[in-house]
């Protein structure tokens, strides 16, 4: 007979640890709590030692990793809070609700810190759209994000979407949220002050998502088993909206000591984490928890019902807190109090069912996992790309690239998101970074997410560095100075040495790039076990970058703004087709090495671009990424509705110049008379400027390689996704 702890996913060693901590056998409720809190998802037991190398400090970092969200000072008494998270498996089970509750969760992480959420972004990864299942998942996920985010009145202003067979069995739904607050409203998820009340606010508790399969398997099998099955979490954005308003009002009135959202592991997690952070104990009576259905204490402790918050409140302020919740129509009840010591005591109608040290739940075991370089790397990296035969109709190649799922226009998605509500979005989706003005100031935030997993698959270290560089480059193209980043690291099973090697290399790349570019990592999330039938996804770290635009008038878009401007390329184009979209589309290969990244060069190119924008020399900017220079130029034309006639002087063969995804490049426009000034700016940083030609007309002409009408390119790009979704 298997032991209960095994069915709950704990190892024998972990079980012994629990006995050692308690000095006795744990009760069933206690065991359930440990199993969740010590799960990979909550404890970071595999990733913690690796993540410790990330740079997390800077003078303007007010809160780094360890809280619900990271926070940076953006001047003028204001701070920005942001974080990224995954909701991969729930979205694979029920795409609409999975994605919806993903938005709900990440938004709670933001207002839990005292910030008003001002934007969401959604990095998504799906398998091939040729599969009806993938089309179903795609439509459901997008509708779920829209359904929840739109109702909250938080604009979804960005994200990215890639399709690759590696996600056929395991899609990725990552979500990022950003909020803004007056610095003094910052509050932490801490319980302090013995005798303070523990208040549970929001939706009633039901049997939502209880512990997943492991818990299910531990239930005795009888005629009620069917009834006890965990239910899919259904999002209730209306209640979440009320929670946002109520919590921000409570904070504004300074009525709270601590605030914590309930996410994974529900009450267990919220109570033990707040108590552990505050160095106190807590006494909870579960009969006070408002329930949706009959439940036992085990179920109540581990339920993942959405739209709930835990607040720590001084007794003298309790009445006002409860009255404020009532005014917002929100259930709120006292479920316990803060106690001396560090014991978490849980009662069920007066009977003690749990007595464990809070810190022992919150700080689980740590593992040094084995890592071994995977064998596939040598093979894919050594692929001989020099021998490839390239097609001669380059117009066709370009149109094929932008009518493929990865590079086509994503309007069909972002138009389902209310990306304008709150009146802050001053650069709409479709550019490199979204730009959000900060009302009451002349400043704005530029935000972008990035992560090309094909590069990371081919070179975990270098590919992850590219994700950092590119996210920053996007922010720069919009006129922003990158400030800090968040991330979501999506990998396979960490117990496999080859996967763990990918993870370690990737985090090393993240750390080195962030350190070199002086970009602190202020928050993030790790999602392991993204596998199906033993096949892992490509390692997929996703980076979310936040930058600051000092003066709104220096924001830029990718669009060619008018006729008669000089089009120039900042940075060098090399023969680097490895890992490119071109290679994948035309030759069906994911091979070679991803483009090389020199972080010094990257910094120089970025500062040249920022400086050029700041001085009013650069009028539009677009970084070159997937699809290379050709796709970047096409996008500039389509966005502005203006063509360009260009000449390229290069020793490279045409496909290499057009489709290589060389890093550290921008396509910019400027007035003829400013060319010298830009060249000087660039030369002082050892950056080359290549003047390519001029904007104007209704065609994009690149030497005798490319000659396409802007309207045609636009139509092809815009129709593609709709067509692919029809199957």
């Amino acid at each position, binding site marked *: 007979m298997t032991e209960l702890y095994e069915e709950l996913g704990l190892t024998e060693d972990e079980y012994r640890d629990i006995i050692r901590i308690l000095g006795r056998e744990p009760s069933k409720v206690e065991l359930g709590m440990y199993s969740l809190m010590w799960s990979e998802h909550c404890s970071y037991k595999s990733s913690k030692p690796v993540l410790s190398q990330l740079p997390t400090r800077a003078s303007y970092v007010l809160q780094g990793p360890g809280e619900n969200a990271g926070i940076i000072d953006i001047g003028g008494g204001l701070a920005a809070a942001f974080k990224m998270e995954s909701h991969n498996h729930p979205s694979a089970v*029920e795409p609409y609700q999975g994605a919806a509750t993903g938005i709900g969760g990440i938004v709670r992480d933001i207002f839990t810190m005292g910030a008003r959420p001002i934007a969401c972004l959604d990095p998504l990864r799906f398998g091939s759209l040729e599969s009806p299942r993938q089309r179903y998942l795609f439509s459901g996920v997008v509708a779920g994000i829209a359904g929840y985010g739109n109702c909250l009145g938080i604009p979804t202003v960005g994200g990215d979407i890639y399709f690759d067979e590696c996600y056929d069995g395991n899609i990725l739904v990552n979500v990022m949220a950003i909020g803004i607050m007056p610095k003094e409203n910052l509050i932490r998820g801490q319980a302090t002050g013995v005798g303070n009340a523990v208040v549970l606010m929001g*939706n009633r508790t039901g049997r*939502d998502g209880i512990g997943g399969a492991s818990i299910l398997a531990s239930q005795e099998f009888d005629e009620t088993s069917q009834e006890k099955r965990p*239910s899919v979490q*259904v*999002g*209730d954005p209306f*209640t979440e909206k009320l929670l946002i308003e109520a919590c921000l009002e409570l904070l504004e009135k300074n009525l709270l000591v601590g605030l914590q959202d309930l996410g994974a592991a529900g009450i267990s997690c919220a109570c033990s984490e707040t108590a552990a952070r505050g160095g106190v104990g807590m006494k909870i009576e579960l009969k006070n928890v408002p329930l949706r259905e009959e439940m036992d204490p085990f179920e109540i402790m581990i339920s993942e019902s959405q739209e709930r918050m835990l607040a720590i409140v001084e007794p003298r302020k309790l009445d006002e807190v409860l009255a404020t919740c009532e005014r917002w*129509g929100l259930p709120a009840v006292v479920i316990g109090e803060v106690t001396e010591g560090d014991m978490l005591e849980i009662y069920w109608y007066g009977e003690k069912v749990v007595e464990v040290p809070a810190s022992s739940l919150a700080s689980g075991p740590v593992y040094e996992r084995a890592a071994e370089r995977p064998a596939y790397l040598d093979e894919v990296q050594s692929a001989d790309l020099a021998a490839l035969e390239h097609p001669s109709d380059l117009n066709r190649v370009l149109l094929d690239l932008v009518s493929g799922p990865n590079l086509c226009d994503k309007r069909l998605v972002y138009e389902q998101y209310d990306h304008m509500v709150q009146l802050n979005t001053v650069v709409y989706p479709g550019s490199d970074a979204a730009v959000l003005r900060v009302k009451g100031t002349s400043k704005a935030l530029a935000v972008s997410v990035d992560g090309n997993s094909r590069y990371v698959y081919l070179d975990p270290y270098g590919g992850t560095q590219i994700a950092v560089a590119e996210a920053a480059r996007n922010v720069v193209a919009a006129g922003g100075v990158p400030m800090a980043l968040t991330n979501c690291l999506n990998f396979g099973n960490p117990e496999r040495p080859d996967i763990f090697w990918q993870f370690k290399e990737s985090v090393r790349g993240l750390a080195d790039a962030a350190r070199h570019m002086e970009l602190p990592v202020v928050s993030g999330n790790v999602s392991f076990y993204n596998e199906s039938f033993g096949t892992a996804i490509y390692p997929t770290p996703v980076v979310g970058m936040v930058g600051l635009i000092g003066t709104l008038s220096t924001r830029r878009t990718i669009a060619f703004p008018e006729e008669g401007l000089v089009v120039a390329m900042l940075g060098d184009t090399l023969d680097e087709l490895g890992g490119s979209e071109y290679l994948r589309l035309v030759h069906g290969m994911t091979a070679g090495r991803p483009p090389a990244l020199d972080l010094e060069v990257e910094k120089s190119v970025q500062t040249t671009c920022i400086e050029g924008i700041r001085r009013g020399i650069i009028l539009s900017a677009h970084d070159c990424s997937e699809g290379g220079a050709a796709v970047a130029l096409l996008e500039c034309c389509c966005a502005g509705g203006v063509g360009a006639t260009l000449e390229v002087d290069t020793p490279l063969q045409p496909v290499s110049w057009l489709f290589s995804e060389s890093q550290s490049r921008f396509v910019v426009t400027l007035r003829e008379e400013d060319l010298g000034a830009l060249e000087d700016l660039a030369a002082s940083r050892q950056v080359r400027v290549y003047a390519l030609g001029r904007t104007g007309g209704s065609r994009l002409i690149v030497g005798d390689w490319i000659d396409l009408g802007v309207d045609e390119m636009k139509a092809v790009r815009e129709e593609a996704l709709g067509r692919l979704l029809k199957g």
Partner: protein
Amino acid sequence: MKVSIYVSPKKGVLDPAGQAALGALKSLGFGEVADVRIGKYIILRLEDIDAGKAEDRVQEMCERLLANPIIEDYRIEMGD
């Protein structure tokens, strides 16, 4: 041939619309309402179909498209 399909939220699954309607009914003075669940009522008209096969076909439609078995139950009623 007319077919009615009744789709309702599975037991235990949160039904925010039902909860909102419950709240509204109570505040309108309908205190006797203890619970509200809101699902879908789907009316199909089928043509040129062998009555013996119709129910299986409708069941397949429900599984594949009309209901979401992960969060919804459904019931089929053939004929008027």
